[in-house]
Protein backbone atom coordinates (compact mmCIF):
# COMPACT_ATOMS: atom_id res chain seq x y z
CA UNK A 1 0.00 0.00 0.00
CA UNK A 2 1.48 3.35 -0.92
CA UNK A 3 1.00 5.96 1.73
CA UNK A 4 1.11 9.07 -0.32
CA UNK A 5 -1.41 8.53 -3.11
CA UNK A 6 -0.90 11.33 -5.57
CA UNK A 7 2.83 11.46 -4.94
CA UNK A 8 3.65 9.15 -7.75
CA UNK A 9 6.82 10.72 -9.00
CA UNK A 10 10.02 11.97 -7.51
CA UNK A 11 9.37 15.52 -8.64
CA UNK A 12 6.17 15.63 -6.61
CA UNK A 13 8.00 14.36 -3.57
CA UNK A 14 9.10 17.63 -2.02
CA UNK A 15 9.60 15.95 1.33
CA UNK A 16 9.19 12.45 2.60
CA UNK A 17 5.74 11.72 4.11
CA UNK A 18 5.64 11.92 7.90
CA UNK A 19 5.23 8.15 8.34
CA UNK A 20 8.36 7.57 6.30
CA UNK A 21 10.25 10.22 8.26
CA UNK A 22 9.35 8.57 11.55
CA UNK A 23 10.21 5.15 10.15
CA UNK A 24 13.58 6.45 8.95
CA UNK A 25 14.31 8.02 12.32
CA UNK A 26 13.28 4.88 14.19
CA UNK A 27 15.60 2.72 12.07
CA UNK A 28 18.38 5.28 12.43
CA UNK A 29 18.00 5.30 16.22
CA UNK A 30 18.06 1.52 16.25
CA UNK A 31 21.17 1.40 14.05
CA UNK A 32 22.99 4.05 16.10
CA UNK A 33 22.22 2.42 19.44
CA UNK A 34 22.19 -1.28 18.66
CA UNK A 35 24.16 -1.90 15.47
CA UNK A 36 27.00 0.63 15.18
CA UNK A 37 28.46 -0.21 18.60
CA UNK A 38 28.76 -3.91 17.76
CA UNK A 39 29.44 -3.85 14.01
CA UNK A 40 33.23 -4.03 14.37
CA UNK A 41 33.03 -7.04 16.69
CA UNK A 42 30.46 -8.82 14.49
CA UNK A 43 32.83 -8.33 11.56
CA UNK A 44 35.96 -9.42 13.40
CA UNK A 45 34.37 -12.52 14.92
CA UNK A 46 32.13 -13.42 11.94
CA UNK A 47 29.13 -13.52 14.29
CA UNK A 48 25.55 -13.69 12.95
CA UNK A 49 23.52 -10.92 14.65
CA UNK A 50 20.73 -13.24 15.81
CA UNK A 51 19.48 -11.00 18.63
CA UNK A 52 19.42 -7.91 16.45
CA UNK A 53 17.62 -9.73 13.63
CA UNK A 54 14.94 -10.78 16.12
CA UNK A 55 14.64 -7.22 17.41
CA UNK A 56 14.31 -5.96 13.85
CA UNK A 57 11.75 -8.68 13.26
CA UNK A 58 9.72 -7.46 16.24
CA UNK A 59 9.75 -4.00 14.69
CA UNK A 60 8.46 -5.37 11.39
CA UNK A 61 11.65 -4.72 9.45
CA UNK A 62 12.19 -8.35 8.39
CA UNK A 63 8.92 -8.42 6.39
CA UNK A 64 8.29 -4.85 5.41
CA UNK A 65 6.12 -5.44 2.35
CA UNK A 66 4.20 -8.39 3.80
CA UNK A 67 0.57 -7.58 4.65
CA UNK A 68 -0.25 -7.32 8.34
CA UNK A 69 -2.48 -10.42 8.24
CA UNK A 70 0.62 -12.48 7.49
CA UNK A 71 2.66 -10.79 10.22
CA UNK A 72 4.39 -8.09 8.17
CA UNK A 73 4.54 -4.31 8.35
CA UNK A 74 2.43 -3.69 5.24
CA UNK A 75 4.66 -0.88 4.03
CA UNK A 76 5.89 0.19 0.60
CA UNK A 77 9.26 -0.14 -1.12
CA UNK A 78 10.19 3.49 -0.44
CA UNK A 79 9.90 2.69 3.26
CA UNK A 80 11.96 -0.44 2.69
CA UNK A 81 14.72 1.55 0.96
CA UNK A 82 14.83 4.02 3.84
CA UNK A 83 14.98 1.26 6.43
CA UNK A 84 17.67 -0.63 4.50
CA UNK A 85 19.89 2.42 4.20
CA UNK A 86 19.68 3.28 7.89
CA UNK A 87 20.32 -0.27 9.05
CA UNK A 88 23.23 -0.75 6.66
CA UNK A 89 24.69 2.54 7.82
CA UNK A 90 24.96 0.89 11.23
CA UNK A 91 26.03 -2.57 10.09
CA UNK A 92 26.25 -3.65 6.44
CA UNK A 93 26.15 -7.36 7.33
CA UNK A 94 22.88 -6.95 9.20
CA UNK A 95 21.65 -5.00 6.20
CA UNK A 96 22.24 -7.85 3.77
CA UNK A 97 20.50 -10.35 6.08
CA UNK A 98 17.47 -8.04 6.14
CA UNK A 99 17.60 -7.49 2.37
CA UNK A 100 17.85 -11.15 1.41
CA UNK A 101 14.95 -12.06 3.70
CA UNK A 102 12.72 -9.26 2.44
CA UNK A 103 13.48 -9.09 -1.27
CA UNK A 104 14.94 -12.42 -2.31
CA UNK A 105 13.12 -14.87 -0.07
CA UNK A 106 9.76 -13.37 0.92
CA UNK A 107 9.48 -11.28 -2.27
CA UNK A 108 8.95 -14.09 -4.80
CA UNK A 109 6.69 -16.09 -2.47
CA UNK A 110 4.51 -13.01 -1.99
CA UNK A 111 4.32 -12.54 -5.74
CA UNK A 112 4.16 -16.11 -7.06
CA UNK A 113 3.08 -18.23 -4.10
CA UNK A 114 -0.31 -19.78 -3.39
CA UNK A 115 -2.21 -18.63 -0.30
CA UNK A 116 -1.20 -21.86 1.40
CA UNK A 117 2.47 -21.36 0.53
CA UNK A 118 2.36 -17.79 1.82
CA UNK A 119 1.03 -18.98 5.17
CA UNK A 120 3.58 -21.76 5.44
CA UNK A 121 6.66 -20.06 4.03
CA UNK A 122 6.16 -16.36 4.86
CA UNK A 123 4.35 -16.10 8.17
CA UNK A 124 7.05 -17.81 10.29
CA UNK A 125 9.71 -15.70 8.55
CA UNK A 126 8.41 -12.29 9.60
CA UNK A 127 9.59 -12.22 13.20
CA UNK A 128 13.34 -12.51 12.68
CA UNK A 129 13.32 -15.90 14.35
CA UNK A 130 13.61 -17.57 10.95
CA UNK A 131 15.27 -16.18 7.83
CA UNK A 132 15.27 -17.44 4.28
CA UNK A 133 17.78 -17.52 1.44
CA UNK A 134 17.84 -17.46 -2.36
CA UNK A 135 19.78 -20.18 -4.16
CA UNK A 136 20.31 -19.25 -7.81
CA UNK A 137 24.06 -19.05 -8.43
CA UNK A 138 26.12 -22.17 -8.94
CA UNK A 139 29.86 -22.86 -9.00
CA UNK A 140 29.56 -22.99 -12.81
CA UNK A 141 27.33 -19.96 -13.35
CA UNK A 142 26.59 -16.64 -11.67
CA UNK A 143 25.80 -14.01 -14.27
CA UNK A 144 24.80 -16.78 -16.68
CA UNK A 145 21.77 -17.76 -14.60
CA UNK A 146 20.07 -19.44 -17.55
CA UNK A 147 22.73 -22.15 -17.57
CA UNK A 148 21.55 -23.67 -14.27
CA UNK A 149 22.82 -27.22 -13.92
CA UNK A 150 20.96 -28.11 -10.74
CA UNK A 151 18.23 -30.55 -11.78
CA UNK A 152 14.81 -31.51 -10.44
CA UNK A 153 12.92 -34.54 -11.71
CA UNK A 154 9.62 -35.96 -10.58
CA UNK A 155 9.44 -39.32 -8.82
CA UNK A 156 5.89 -40.17 -7.82
CA UNK A 157 4.60 -37.39 -5.59
CA UNK A 158 7.99 -35.86 -5.00
CA UNK A 159 10.54 -33.68 -6.69
CA UNK A 160 14.12 -34.96 -6.44
CA UNK A 161 16.68 -32.18 -6.59
CA UNK A 162 20.36 -32.62 -7.36
CA UNK A 163 23.12 -30.05 -7.70
CA UNK A 164 25.21 -27.46 -5.95
CA UNK A 165 24.43 -23.81 -5.33
CA UNK A 166 27.18 -21.32 -4.57
CA UNK A 167 27.61 -18.05 -2.69
CA UNK A 168 24.30 -18.32 -0.83
CA UNK A 169 23.86 -15.51 1.72
CA UNK A 170 22.21 -16.52 5.01
CA UNK A 171 22.73 -20.20 4.18
CA UNK A 172 24.10 -21.20 7.59
CA UNK A 173 21.35 -19.29 9.42
CA UNK A 174 18.37 -19.97 7.15
CA UNK A 175 15.31 -22.14 7.77
CA UNK A 176 14.27 -22.25 4.12
CA UNK A 177 15.65 -21.67 0.65
CA UNK A 178 14.23 -20.86 -2.75
CA UNK A 179 16.18 -23.19 -5.04
CA UNK A 180 16.25 -22.76 -8.81
CA UNK A 181 16.64 -26.02 -10.72
CA UNK A 182 16.05 -27.11 -14.26
CA UNK A 183 13.14 -29.45 -14.86
CA UNK A 184 13.89 -29.64 -18.59
CA UNK A 185 17.39 -28.89 -19.86
CA UNK A 186 16.28 -28.88 -23.49
CA UNK A 187 14.18 -25.77 -22.87
CA UNK A 188 17.29 -23.93 -21.64
CA UNK A 189 16.32 -21.01 -19.39
CA UNK A 190 12.63 -21.69 -19.94
CA UNK A 191 13.14 -25.09 -18.34
CA UNK A 192 14.12 -23.70 -14.95
CA UNK A 193 11.66 -23.91 -12.06
CA UNK A 194 11.66 -22.53 -8.54
CA UNK A 195 11.33 -24.71 -5.45
CA UNK A 196 10.77 -24.06 -1.75
CA UNK A 197 13.09 -26.19 0.36
CA UNK A 198 13.03 -26.28 4.16
CA UNK A 199 16.32 -26.17 6.03
CA UNK A 200 17.59 -28.40 7.45
CA UNK A 201 16.29 -31.19 5.22
CA UNK A 202 17.48 -34.67 4.28
CA UNK A 203 19.53 -34.45 1.11
CA UNK A 204 20.50 -30.83 1.71
CA UNK A 205 23.86 -30.02 3.18
CA UNK A 206 25.93 -26.87 3.54
CA UNK A 207 29.44 -26.24 2.32
CA UNK A 208 32.02 -24.48 4.47
CA UNK A 209 31.32 -20.88 5.46
CA UNK A 210 33.23 -18.68 3.06
CA UNK A 211 35.92 -16.48 4.61
CA UNK A 212 35.01 -13.20 2.95
CA UNK A 213 36.59 -9.77 2.55
CA UNK A 214 33.54 -8.04 3.99
CA UNK A 215 29.94 -8.44 5.30
CA UNK A 216 31.47 -11.10 7.48
CA UNK A 217 28.67 -11.30 10.03
CA UNK A 218 26.42 -12.80 7.35
CA UNK A 219 27.08 -16.40 6.36
CA UNK A 220 27.86 -17.33 2.75
CA UNK A 221 28.25 -20.94 1.66
CA UNK A 222 27.44 -23.58 -0.93
CA UNK A 223 24.17 -25.49 -0.65
CA UNK A 224 24.60 -29.08 -1.81
CA UNK A 225 21.55 -31.06 -2.87
CA UNK A 226 21.91 -34.83 -3.17
CA UNK A 227 18.65 -36.61 -3.95
CA UNK A 228 16.90 -33.97 -1.92
CA UNK A 229 13.21 -34.94 -1.94
CA UNK A 230 10.42 -32.39 -1.56
CA UNK A 231 6.63 -32.65 -2.02
CA UNK A 232 5.20 -31.59 -5.39
CA UNK A 233 3.41 -28.74 -3.64
CA UNK A 234 6.77 -27.13 -2.88
CA UNK A 235 7.20 -25.84 -6.43
CA UNK A 236 6.87 -22.05 -6.50
CA UNK A 237 4.96 -20.67 -9.44
CA UNK A 238 4.28 -22.57 -12.67
CA UNK A 239 6.74 -25.11 -13.99
CA UNK A 240 9.34 -23.50 -16.24
CA UNK A 241 8.82 -20.00 -14.82
CA UNK A 242 11.87 -20.13 -12.56
CA UNK A 243 14.04 -17.86 -14.68
CA UNK A 244 11.29 -15.26 -14.94
CA UNK A 245 10.74 -15.46 -11.17
CA UNK A 246 14.47 -15.04 -10.54
CA UNK A 247 14.83 -12.04 -12.83
CA UNK A 248 11.76 -10.27 -11.46
CA UNK A 249 12.87 -11.00 -7.90
CA UNK A 250 16.32 -9.58 -8.59
CA UNK A 251 14.77 -6.38 -9.96
CA UNK A 252 13.34 -5.71 -6.52
CA UNK A 253 16.37 -7.07 -4.71
CA UNK A 254 18.48 -4.50 -6.51
CA UNK A 255 16.58 -1.70 -4.79
CA UNK A 256 17.38 -3.27 -1.42
CA UNK A 257 21.06 -3.70 -2.26
CA UNK A 258 21.23 -0.17 -3.66
CA UNK A 259 19.94 1.01 -0.28
CA UNK A 260 22.51 -1.13 1.52
CA UNK A 261 25.27 0.41 -0.59
CA UNK A 262 23.89 3.88 0.23
CA UNK A 263 24.15 3.09 3.92
CA UNK A 264 27.78 2.06 3.56
CA UNK A 265 28.55 5.13 1.46
CA UNK A 266 26.81 7.43 3.95
CA UNK A 267 28.69 5.90 6.87
CA UNK A 268 31.95 6.46 4.98
CA UNK A 269 31.11 10.10 4.29
CA UNK A 270 30.22 10.73 7.93
CA UNK A 271 33.43 9.06 9.08
CA UNK A 272 35.50 11.19 6.70
CA UNK A 273 33.69 14.46 7.44
CA UNK A 274 33.99 13.91 11.18
CA UNK A 275 37.70 13.20 10.87
CA UNK A 276 38.20 16.28 8.70
CA UNK A 277 36.91 18.41 11.60
CA UNK A 278 39.23 16.94 14.17
CA UNK A 279 42.47 16.17 12.43
CA UNK A 280 44.77 19.17 12.11
CA UNK A 281 47.64 19.54 9.69
CA UNK A 282 49.56 22.63 8.65
CA UNK A 283 48.00 24.47 11.56
CA UNK A 284 44.30 23.92 10.81
CA UNK A 285 41.66 21.15 10.59
CA UNK A 286 42.18 19.29 7.33
CA UNK A 287 38.57 20.05 6.41
CA UNK A 288 39.82 23.54 5.55
CA UNK A 289 41.98 22.16 2.76
CA UNK A 290 40.51 22.12 -0.74
CA UNK A 291 41.93 18.69 -1.48
CA UNK A 292 39.80 17.25 1.32
CA UNK A 293 36.80 19.45 0.55
CA UNK A 294 36.68 18.30 -3.05
CA UNK A 295 36.70 14.69 -1.93
CA UNK A 296 33.83 15.25 0.50
CA UNK A 297 31.84 17.12 -2.14
CA UNK A 298 32.33 14.35 -4.69
CA UNK A 299 31.27 11.78 -2.12
CA UNK A 300 28.12 13.73 -1.24
CA UNK A 301 27.12 14.15 -4.88
CA UNK A 302 27.64 10.47 -5.63
CA UNK A 303 25.49 9.48 -2.66
CA UNK A 304 22.70 11.97 -3.29
CA UNK A 305 22.44 10.97 -6.95
CA UNK A 306 22.35 7.28 -6.13
CA UNK A 307 19.83 7.88 -3.36
CA UNK A 308 17.43 9.70 -5.65
CA UNK A 309 17.77 6.91 -8.24
CA UNK A 310 16.99 4.38 -5.53
CA UNK A 311 13.93 6.30 -4.36
CA UNK A 312 12.76 6.70 -7.95
CA UNK A 313 13.01 2.96 -8.57
CA UNK A 314 11.12 2.32 -5.32
CA UNK A 315 8.41 4.84 -6.20
CA UNK A 316 7.95 3.34 -9.67
CA UNK A 317 7.63 -0.12 -8.16
CA UNK A 318 5.13 1.16 -5.58
CA UNK A 319 3.08 2.71 -8.39
CA UNK A 320 3.14 -0.66 -10.17
CA UNK A 321 5.04 0.84 -13.08
CA UNK A 322 7.99 -0.74 -14.89
CA UNK A 323 11.13 -0.23 -12.85
CA UNK A 324 13.71 -2.68 -14.22
CA UNK A 325 15.91 -0.01 -15.79
CA UNK A 326 15.72 2.31 -12.79
CA UNK A 327 16.45 -0.48 -10.30
CA UNK A 328 19.54 -1.45 -12.31
CA UNK A 329 20.62 2.19 -12.47
CA UNK A 330 20.13 2.58 -8.72
CA UNK A 331 22.12 -0.56 -7.90
CA UNK A 332 24.90 0.41 -10.29
CA UNK A 333 25.12 4.00 -9.04
CA UNK A 334 24.84 3.14 -5.36
CA UNK A 335 27.37 0.31 -5.39
CA UNK A 336 29.89 2.39 -7.31
CA UNK A 337 29.19 5.25 -4.86
CA UNK A 338 29.86 2.90 -1.96
CA UNK A 339 33.22 1.76 -3.30
CA UNK A 340 34.15 5.33 -4.24
CA UNK A 341 33.14 6.85 -0.91
CA UNK A 342 34.74 4.15 1.21
CA UNK A 343 37.94 4.42 -0.83
CA UNK A 344 38.04 8.19 -0.39
CA UNK A 345 37.16 7.93 3.28
CA UNK A 346 40.30 5.88 3.87
CA UNK A 347 42.24 8.48 1.90
CA UNK A 348 40.89 11.29 4.07
CA UNK A 349 41.77 9.37 7.23
CA UNK A 350 45.25 8.60 5.98
CA UNK A 351 47.03 6.06 8.14
CA UNK A 352 44.07 5.95 10.53
CA UNK A 353 41.92 4.73 7.64
CA UNK A 354 44.05 1.65 7.26
CA UNK A 355 43.67 0.33 10.82
CA UNK A 356 40.74 -1.33 12.53
CA UNK A 357 40.51 1.39 15.17
CA UNK A 358 38.39 3.35 12.70
CA UNK A 359 35.42 1.92 10.75
CA UNK A 360 36.68 3.21 7.37
CA UNK A 361 38.51 -0.01 6.54
CA UNK A 362 35.40 -2.08 7.32
CA UNK A 363 33.25 0.13 5.07
CA UNK A 364 35.84 -0.38 2.30
CA UNK A 365 35.66 -4.13 2.67
CA UNK A 366 31.86 -4.18 3.03
CA UNK A 367 31.33 -1.95 0.00
CA UNK A 368 33.18 -4.15 -2.47
CA UNK A 369 30.58 -6.92 -2.70
CA UNK A 370 27.79 -4.50 -3.61
CA UNK A 371 29.27 -4.23 -7.11
CA UNK A 372 29.12 -8.00 -7.48
CA UNK A 373 26.10 -9.67 -5.91
CA UNK A 374 22.51 -9.46 -7.13
CA UNK A 375 23.88 -8.68 -10.55
CA UNK A 376 27.40 -7.48 -11.24
CA UNK A 377 27.93 -3.90 -12.38
CA UNK A 378 28.54 -5.33 -15.84
CA UNK A 379 25.17 -7.09 -15.84
CA UNK A 380 23.49 -3.90 -14.59
CA UNK A 381 24.96 -2.04 -17.57
CA UNK A 382 23.60 -4.74 -19.91
CA UNK A 383 20.16 -4.47 -18.32
CA UNK A 384 20.16 -0.66 -18.60
CA UNK A 385 21.39 -0.72 -22.18
CA UNK A 386 18.82 -3.36 -23.08
CA UNK A 387 16.01 -1.16 -21.74
CA UNK A 388 17.43 1.96 -23.37
CA UNK A 389 17.74 0.32 -26.75
CA UNK A 390 14.15 -0.89 -26.51
CA UNK A 391 13.10 2.69 -25.78
CA UNK A 392 14.99 3.88 -28.81
CA UNK A 393 13.54 1.05 -30.90
CA UNK A 394 16.87 -0.50 -31.90
Amino acid at each position, binding site marked *: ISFFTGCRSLSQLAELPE*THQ*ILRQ*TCRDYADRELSPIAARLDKEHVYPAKQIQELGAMGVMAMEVPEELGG*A*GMDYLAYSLAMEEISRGCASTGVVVSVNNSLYIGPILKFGTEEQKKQWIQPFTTGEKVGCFALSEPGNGSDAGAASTTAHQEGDEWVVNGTKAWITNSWDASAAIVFATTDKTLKHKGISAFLVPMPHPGLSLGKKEDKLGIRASSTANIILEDCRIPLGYMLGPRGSGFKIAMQTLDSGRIGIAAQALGIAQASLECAA*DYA*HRRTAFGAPIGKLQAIQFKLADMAVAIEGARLLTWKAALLRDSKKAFTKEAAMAKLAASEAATFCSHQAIQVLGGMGYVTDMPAERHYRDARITEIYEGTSEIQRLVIAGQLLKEYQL
Partner: protein
Amino acid sequence: LSCKVLSSVVTPCYCFVSPQIRVKPDNTGVVTDGVKHSMNPFCEIAVEEAVKLKEKKLIKEVVAVSCGPQQSQETIRTALAMGADRGIHVDVSGKDYENLGPLQVSKILAALAKQEDAQLILLGKQAIDDDCNQTGQMTAALLDWPQGTFASEVSLEGDKINLVREIDGGLEHIKINTPAVITADLRLNTPRYATLPNIMKAKKKKIVTVKPADLGVDVTSRLEVLKVEEPPQRQAGMKVETVEDLVVKLKEAGRV
Protein backbone atom coordinates in the same frame (compact mmCIF):
# COMPACT_ATOMS: atom_id res chain seq x y z
CA LEU B 1 -7.30 1.74 39.79
CA SER B 2 -9.66 2.90 37.11
CA CYS B 3 -7.43 5.55 35.69
CA LYS B 4 -9.35 7.73 33.31
CA VAL B 5 -6.54 9.41 31.45
CA LEU B 6 -2.83 9.38 31.73
CA SER B 7 -1.14 12.46 30.52
CA SER B 8 2.38 11.89 29.40
CA VAL B 9 4.49 14.82 28.43
CA VAL B 10 6.83 14.54 25.53
CA THR B 11 9.29 17.36 25.56
CA PRO B 12 10.81 18.04 22.19
CA CYS B 13 14.33 18.96 23.02
CA TYR B 14 17.26 19.91 20.91
CA CYS B 15 19.31 16.92 20.01
CA PHE B 16 22.78 18.01 19.09
CA VAL B 17 24.05 15.55 16.53
CA SER B 18 27.26 17.33 15.69
CA PRO B 19 29.98 17.49 18.33
CA GLN B 20 29.94 21.27 18.32
CA ILE B 21 27.51 23.25 20.39
CA ARG B 22 28.05 26.87 19.54
CA VAL B 23 27.05 29.97 21.45
CA LYS B 24 25.31 32.62 19.36
CA PRO B 25 27.54 35.58 18.49
CA ASP B 26 25.30 37.90 20.56
CA ASN B 27 25.61 35.62 23.62
CA THR B 28 21.85 35.29 24.02
CA GLY B 29 21.75 31.55 23.64
CA VAL B 30 23.05 28.61 21.62
CA VAL B 31 22.71 28.21 17.86
CA THR B 32 19.60 26.17 17.13
CA ASP B 33 19.26 26.63 13.37
CA GLY B 34 19.43 23.33 11.56
CA VAL B 35 19.74 21.40 14.82
CA LYS B 36 17.49 18.39 15.06
CA HIS B 37 14.60 18.25 17.49
CA SER B 38 13.85 14.90 18.98
CA MET B 39 12.03 13.48 21.95
CA ASN B 40 13.78 14.05 25.27
CA PRO B 41 15.22 10.69 26.37
CA PHE B 42 13.63 10.88 29.84
CA CYS B 43 10.28 11.66 28.26
CA GLU B 44 10.71 8.61 26.04
CA ILE B 45 11.04 6.60 29.24
CA ALA B 46 7.90 8.27 30.61
CA VAL B 47 5.91 7.41 27.47
CA GLU B 48 7.16 3.84 27.63
CA GLU B 49 6.01 3.55 31.26
CA ALA B 50 2.60 4.94 30.38
CA VAL B 51 2.18 2.52 27.48
CA LYS B 52 3.28 -0.37 29.73
CA LEU B 53 0.64 0.58 32.35
CA LYS B 54 -1.99 0.62 29.62
CA GLU B 55 -0.84 -2.78 28.34
CA LYS B 56 -1.22 -4.10 31.89
CA LYS B 57 -4.76 -2.65 31.76
CA LEU B 58 -4.06 -0.52 34.82
CA ILE B 59 -4.90 2.70 33.03
CA LYS B 60 -7.38 3.46 30.31
CA GLU B 61 -5.82 5.98 27.98
CA VAL B 62 -2.47 7.60 27.27
CA VAL B 63 -2.47 11.17 26.00
CA ALA B 64 0.83 12.55 24.70
CA VAL B 65 1.35 16.28 25.13
CA SER B 66 3.97 18.54 23.62
CA CYS B 67 4.44 22.31 23.84
CA GLY B 68 6.19 23.95 20.95
CA PRO B 69 6.08 24.88 17.29
CA GLN B 70 4.65 22.84 14.41
CA GLN B 71 7.58 20.34 14.47
CA SER B 72 6.49 19.19 17.92
CA GLN B 73 3.76 17.22 16.19
CA GLU B 74 6.39 14.81 14.88
CA THR B 75 7.49 14.14 18.44
CA ILE B 76 3.88 13.48 19.42
CA ARG B 77 3.50 11.18 16.42
CA THR B 78 6.50 9.18 17.66
CA ALA B 79 4.80 8.83 21.04
CA LEU B 80 1.64 7.66 19.26
CA ALA B 81 3.75 5.13 17.37
CA MET B 82 5.02 3.85 20.72
CA GLY B 83 1.46 3.27 21.87
CA ALA B 84 -0.06 6.53 23.12
CA ASP B 85 -3.74 6.87 22.14
CA ARG B 86 -4.01 10.50 21.16
CA GLY B 87 -2.01 13.70 21.26
CA ILE B 88 -2.41 17.33 22.27
CA HIS B 89 -0.12 19.85 20.65
CA VAL B 90 0.07 23.13 22.54
CA ASP B 91 1.16 25.56 19.88
CA VAL B 92 3.93 27.86 21.10
CA SER B 93 6.30 29.33 18.56
CA GLY B 94 8.83 32.03 17.87
CA LYS B 95 10.03 34.19 20.76
CA ASP B 96 7.45 32.62 23.08
CA TYR B 97 8.99 29.22 22.39
CA GLU B 98 12.53 30.46 22.94
CA ASN B 99 11.49 31.79 26.35
CA LEU B 100 9.27 28.86 27.29
CA GLY B 101 10.40 27.52 30.65
CA PRO B 102 9.31 24.99 33.27
CA LEU B 103 6.89 27.37 34.99
CA GLN B 104 4.95 28.06 31.79
CA VAL B 105 4.90 24.37 30.81
CA SER B 106 3.69 23.37 34.30
CA LYS B 107 0.84 25.86 34.09
CA ILE B 108 -0.13 24.38 30.71
CA LEU B 109 0.04 20.83 32.03
CA ALA B 110 -1.98 21.71 35.11
CA ALA B 111 -4.67 23.28 32.95
CA LEU B 112 -4.73 20.25 30.62
CA ALA B 113 -4.85 17.81 33.53
CA LYS B 114 -7.96 19.54 34.84
CA GLN B 115 -9.52 19.72 31.36
CA GLU B 116 -8.84 16.04 30.64
CA ASP B 117 -9.65 14.89 34.19
CA ALA B 118 -6.32 13.05 34.28
CA GLN B 119 -5.39 10.86 37.22
CA LEU B 120 -1.70 10.60 36.50
CA ILE B 121 0.91 12.79 34.85
CA LEU B 122 4.11 11.06 33.75
CA LEU B 123 7.04 13.14 32.56
CA GLY B 124 10.77 12.86 32.15
CA LYS B 125 12.74 14.03 35.18
CA GLN B 126 14.44 16.78 33.17
CA ALA B 127 15.06 17.94 29.62
CA ILE B 128 18.55 17.29 28.35
CA ASP B 129 18.90 20.70 26.72
CA ASP B 130 18.26 22.87 29.75
CA ASP B 131 18.57 20.32 32.60
CA CYS B 132 16.05 22.29 34.67
CA ASN B 133 14.44 19.37 36.52
CA GLN B 134 11.52 21.60 37.60
CA THR B 135 8.49 20.96 35.44
CA GLY B 136 7.25 17.84 37.25
CA GLN B 137 7.62 19.37 40.68
CA MET B 138 5.99 22.67 39.68
CA THR B 139 3.08 20.89 38.02
CA ALA B 140 2.42 18.91 41.19
CA ALA B 141 2.54 22.07 43.27
CA LEU B 142 0.15 23.95 40.97
CA LEU B 143 -2.33 21.07 41.13
CA ASP B 144 -1.65 20.37 44.80
CA TRP B 145 -1.02 16.72 43.89
CA PRO B 146 1.57 14.37 45.42
CA GLN B 147 4.72 13.84 43.39
CA GLY B 148 7.09 10.91 42.89
CA THR B 149 10.22 12.21 41.19
CA PHE B 150 13.31 10.36 39.84
CA ALA B 151 11.23 7.17 39.70
CA SER B 152 13.10 3.99 38.91
CA GLU B 153 10.16 1.73 39.71
CA VAL B 154 6.42 2.37 39.61
CA SER B 155 3.63 0.04 40.64
CA LEU B 156 -0.05 0.72 41.13
CA GLU B 157 -1.75 -0.68 44.22
CA GLY B 158 -5.44 0.02 44.37
CA ASP B 159 -5.73 3.80 44.18
CA LYS B 160 -2.21 4.36 45.51
CA ILE B 161 1.14 4.24 43.80
CA ASN B 162 4.26 2.52 45.11
CA LEU B 163 7.35 4.27 43.88
CA VAL B 164 11.09 3.74 44.18
CA ARG B 165 13.07 6.95 43.84
CA GLU B 166 16.75 7.22 43.00
CA ILE B 167 18.21 9.72 45.44
CA ASP B 168 21.73 10.68 46.42
CA GLY B 169 21.64 8.40 49.45
CA GLY B 170 20.36 5.37 47.57
CA LEU B 171 16.84 4.17 46.84
CA GLU B 172 13.78 5.59 48.56
CA HIS B 173 10.48 3.69 48.67
CA ILE B 174 7.37 5.84 48.94
CA LYS B 175 3.64 5.38 48.60
CA ILE B 176 1.58 8.24 47.21
CA ASN B 177 -2.09 8.86 46.55
CA THR B 178 -3.59 9.50 43.16
CA PRO B 179 -4.03 11.77 41.33
CA ALA B 180 -0.26 12.27 41.19
CA VAL B 181 2.71 13.46 39.16
CA ILE B 182 5.59 11.06 38.45
CA THR B 183 8.89 11.96 36.79
CA ALA B 184 10.90 9.22 35.11
CA ASP B 185 14.55 8.51 35.77
CA LEU B 186 16.96 6.58 33.57
CA ARG B 187 16.47 3.11 34.99
CA LEU B 188 12.68 3.08 35.04
CA ASN B 189 12.55 1.11 31.79
CA THR B 190 14.09 0.71 28.33
CA PRO B 191 11.88 2.45 25.77
CA ARG B 192 10.71 0.30 22.91
CA TYR B 193 11.45 1.02 19.28
CA ALA B 194 8.20 1.84 17.54
CA THR B 195 7.17 -1.08 15.36
CA LEU B 196 6.46 -0.32 11.72
CA PRO B 197 2.80 -1.36 11.92
CA ASN B 198 2.39 0.99 14.91
CA ILE B 199 4.08 3.82 13.04
CA MET B 200 1.41 3.42 10.40
CA LYS B 201 -1.43 3.10 12.90
CA ALA B 202 -0.17 6.32 14.52
CA LYS B 203 -1.07 8.16 11.35
CA LYS B 204 -4.75 7.62 12.11
CA LYS B 205 -4.57 8.67 15.77
CA LYS B 206 -5.79 12.19 16.53
CA ILE B 207 -3.59 15.14 17.45
CA VAL B 208 -5.50 18.21 18.61
CA THR B 209 -3.81 21.62 18.52
CA VAL B 210 -4.58 24.24 21.18
CA LYS B 211 -3.05 27.57 22.15
CA PRO B 212 -1.89 28.44 25.68
CA ALA B 213 -4.48 31.22 25.72
CA ASP B 214 -7.24 28.61 25.17
CA LEU B 215 -6.12 27.06 28.44
CA GLY B 216 -6.02 30.41 30.18
CA VAL B 217 -2.24 30.32 30.45
CA ASP B 218 0.05 33.29 30.01
CA VAL B 219 3.40 32.11 28.66
CA THR B 220 5.27 35.34 29.29
CA SER B 221 8.58 34.49 30.82
CA ARG B 222 9.43 35.65 34.32
CA LEU B 223 13.12 35.19 33.60
CA GLU B 224 15.46 37.25 31.47
CA VAL B 225 18.55 35.56 30.09
CA LEU B 226 21.35 38.03 30.59
CA LYS B 227 24.18 36.16 28.94
CA VAL B 228 25.16 32.73 27.60
CA GLU B 229 28.81 31.94 27.24
CA GLU B 230 31.01 28.93 26.68
CA PRO B 231 32.70 27.35 29.65
CA PRO B 232 36.28 28.58 30.14
CA GLN B 233 38.90 26.80 28.08
CA ARG B 234 40.43 23.89 29.88
CA GLN B 235 43.78 24.92 31.32
CA ALA B 236 46.85 22.75 31.24
CA GLY B 237 47.54 20.86 34.44
CA MET B 238 50.72 20.88 36.49
CA LYS B 239 52.86 18.01 37.73
CA VAL B 240 54.38 17.95 41.18
CA GLU B 241 57.05 15.68 42.67
CA THR B 242 55.78 15.16 46.22
CA VAL B 243 52.66 15.48 48.33
CA GLU B 244 54.29 18.40 50.17
CA ASP B 245 54.72 20.22 46.84
CA LEU B 246 51.05 19.54 46.10
CA VAL B 247 49.93 21.14 49.37
CA VAL B 248 52.17 24.17 48.76
CA LYS B 249 50.77 24.62 45.24
CA LEU B 250 47.17 24.25 46.48
CA LYS B 251 47.78 26.88 49.16
CA GLU B 252 49.34 29.20 46.60
CA ALA B 253 46.29 28.87 44.40
CA GLY B 254 44.10 29.66 47.39
CA ARG B 255 42.39 26.28 47.22
CA VAL B 256 43.14 25.32 50.83
